[in-house]
Each structure stands twice: as structure tokens, then as C-alpha cells.
């Protein structure tokens, strides 16, 4: 069965390593914070100026001055720190953040990503996404394998305006874990019960399947 959004987040959380600073984008990536493996310590950075982000506040404890990049009210963990936007992006461009997880509308097999604009339709802006993808060494995209119209989001080349070029290393979807390689999307893992054929059918870009593909191990 294909994963839901929480399942995608749970699988990505397995990539976290002790001592990492991590930036989570809006949407599915935010859910990753709910599945930190036991025994490791990570700190979450939000680009609006906080490191050491905690869970949502208890009702009544919300503070208008304390939000994340999705403008949601949050709390902080012991050891947290606040900083201005220039310092925040110094952390990001300066590669002090070890992992960036973000959503996407399209990912191309060369690692290009599009996630900020649909011409003539949605006008939102790139926020911090372009700075993040241009600099981060380790970028994982969290998204559904296909869009609402059922079309593949893993393409040979992006059709929408780009957010960054050749930057995505790994993609985790509701169907699979894939690595971006020079030859195309290399299938690493299948969602529980999902077949290689189903993944092939949902992937418009080149899919590389070598040997037996294991199922994701989710608790």
C-alpha cells in the first residue's frame, strides 16, 4: 500500500543522524520532526530565525512573536537561539545545516527541482527555497509520486520554472525511495506492498532498477 504523508515523513526521519542541524520545509517535511529516531539528537532550523524549534504550544501558550517559516506558532527546546534573517541564510548558504527536506511540484532525473511557481496560475514566491537548494549539500525531496491529476512528478526534465539546478540527491514519495544518479532515478526501496511495476508506471523519467528492490522498513 502506498504511504500517506506521515509515512513519507517517517521514512525520511530514518535518514537523520546524530548531531545534525536540519531545515524542514512547509508541508510533509514538517512532519519529519514527529519521527526522530530514539537515541539521536538533531536540531531544527527555521529560516525565519530560530534554531532548536520545539513542538506546537499548548492551547493558550501561543506567542505571536514566536513562529516558524510556515507562520505557525511554535515553542523552543532548551538551547534554542534566535537570529536575524541574514544570519539565518549565512547558516544555510555557508553549509552549516546538514540536511534540507523540502516539497516539490516536479523533480527531474538530473536533480533539477521546481516548487515555487505555476505560470499564470499561482503566485506565491520562492521564499527561502532557492537559497536552500543552491547551497545545501544534502537535499531530500518529500512529495507524492504523482500530482492531483495523476501525472508523474518525477520527470526527464522539469516543465515548471526551476527553483534550482542539479541539486536534489534523494526523493522519498508515497511509493518509493529514489536516488538521483547520472543515469536517472535509481530505485532504492519500495513502499510496503507497492510493486516495481507500479513505480515504473508512475515515473515519467528514467527509472533504474537493479536486482531485488527491498521494501521500506517502517515500524
Amino acid at each position: 500500500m502506498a504511504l500517506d504523508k506521515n509515512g513519507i515523513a517517517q521514512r525520511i526521519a530514518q535518514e537523520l543522524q546524530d548531531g545534525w542541524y536540519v531545515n524542514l520545509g512547509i508541508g510533509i517535511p514538517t512532519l519529519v520532526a514527529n519521527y526522530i529516531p530514539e537515541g539521536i539528537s538533531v536540531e531544527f532550523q527555521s529560516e525565519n530565525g530560530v534554531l532548536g524549534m520545539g513542538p506546537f504550544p499548548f492551547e493558550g501558550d501561543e506567542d505571536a512573536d514566536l513562529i516558524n517559516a510556515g507562520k505557525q506558532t511554535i515553542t523552543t527546546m532548551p538551547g534554542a537561539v534566535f537570529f536575524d534573517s541574514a544570519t539565518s541564510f549565512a547558516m544555510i548558504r555557508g553549509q552549516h545545516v546538514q540536511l534540507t527536506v523540502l516539497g516539490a511540484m516536479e523533480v527531474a532525473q538530473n536533480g533539477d527541482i521546481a516548487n515555487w511557481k505555476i505560470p499564470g496560475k499561482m503566485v506565491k514566491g520562492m521564499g527561502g527555497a532557492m537559497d536552500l537548494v543552491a547551497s545545501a549539500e544534502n537535499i531530500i525531496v518529500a512529495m507524492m509520486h504523482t500530482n492531483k491529476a495523476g501525472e508523474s512528478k518525477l520527470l526527464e526534465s522539469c516543465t515548471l520554472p526551476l527553483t534550482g539546478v542539479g541539486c536534489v540527491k534523494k526523493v522519498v514519495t508515497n511509493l518509493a525511495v529514489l536516488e538521483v544518479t547520472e543515469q536517472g532515478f535509481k530505485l532504492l526501496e519500495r513502499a510496503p506492498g507497492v510493486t516495481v511495476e507500479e513505480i515504473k508506471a508512475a515515473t515519467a523519467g528514467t527509472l533504474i532498477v537493479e536486482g531485488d528492490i527491498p521494501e521500506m522498513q517502517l515500524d
Partner: protein
Amino acid sequence: MINKVVNSVDEAIEGVHDNMTFMLGGFGLCGIPENSITALQKSGITGLTCISNNAGVDDFGLGLLLQTRQIKKMISSYVGENDLFEKQMLSGELEVELIPQGTLAERCRAAGAGVPAFYTPAGYGTEVAEGKEVREFNGKPHILEHAFDADFAFVKAWKGDTAGNLIFKATAKNFNPMMAMAGKITVAEVEELVPAGELDPNEIHTPGIFVQRIFQGEKFEKRIEQRTVRPRA
């Protein structure tokens, strides 16, 4: 001690006129100069270029100046929360320059720090890079971005003193410190204004040298955009 205090918000915005370029601090509705925005709306000046990470919501923040059609151009990184904005942009009534958030912050900082331009990797290979100089450093392409040039910067701080020194609270800091550095005239509104000497110099975020005018805001609504909570156990 140089005294930066002005007696009212009207005095604080003295000298603003049509077609100026303003910087306005804040991230979403967090840390925005509410009192200055209200005064700017009342002033009726138009043709404004506003540099601000976001454009407020329909009935608060910079959304107020959009309602009254006072803004000609917005320079922002993310404007998803404002229907009015989207409508004015798609109709061509409002000119919009969307730029990466880190570039926005750095273009403010550079303006205040006397750095005319800088190279950044953000936006390379995208439409943001169109028409910009590209140069490789350490094998990686970067694009040339220029410092902003703003007539006024409007910022909001938690505490300030009569010398213009500022302390921000939590994530209400965001763009305010860089914009304070960058304005030809920087107007700071604070929740609490104290005599110089009362703030610990070790704790000050923005030195008063960057601030030309300071006042205690009459009222701060501090609206929350996305109230997210968990139930008490």
C-alpha cells in the same frame, strides 16, 4: 547622548512622499511595524515601492496599503497569504519582484554595510538569474546581486532606548536588524521605550547609530497568522 525620540508616529513618518522606496521589517505578520503602516495609510501617499519579505494579509500589515492602492511595486520573497495581492499582481496593477529570501536579507544587509553588490549561488539557473552577471567561484556558478536603496526603513522592536538602541524578541527579529541598517532614515517603533542607560549594552541587537527616529507604539495588535496548538494532556 544623542536623542532619537520623536513624539508621535506622525512625526516619525515626516518627510515621506509619493514614489519613495520603503523597507518594512517582519516575517508574515510577526515583527511588522504596525503603527507606521497605519500612519502611512493615513498619509495617503502613493506610488510606493515596498521591500518586505511578505505583503501582509488582506486586512492587516501591508495588505492595508494594498487595499488603498498606495503600493506600485512590491519586492518580496513570498506572498502566498494575500488574495488581494495575487489579484492585483495577476491584473498587472501591481508590479512585483519576487526574490529568494536569503538574497533579500543580504541585499538589505549589504545596503547598510556599504557593500554595493555580492555574488550568491541562490537562483542560478532559474528565472531569478535572467540578465544577471554569472561568475564561477570554486567551480560553482554564482549570480551578482545588488544592495537595495531605500529612502526609509520601518522596523519594529521589543524594547528600545532614547539613543535608538534596539532589542528584538524571539522570531520577531527576522528582517528588522538588516533593514534598520539600510534605511537612509530608519524609523523604529518599540513596545517599550526606556531612557538610555537602562538597557544592558551586552544585550542590544541593533546599535542606535542605525536608527534615526524611535517611538513607543500606541498599540500592537500582534495578530497571529497560523495559530497552531496541541491540546493539553
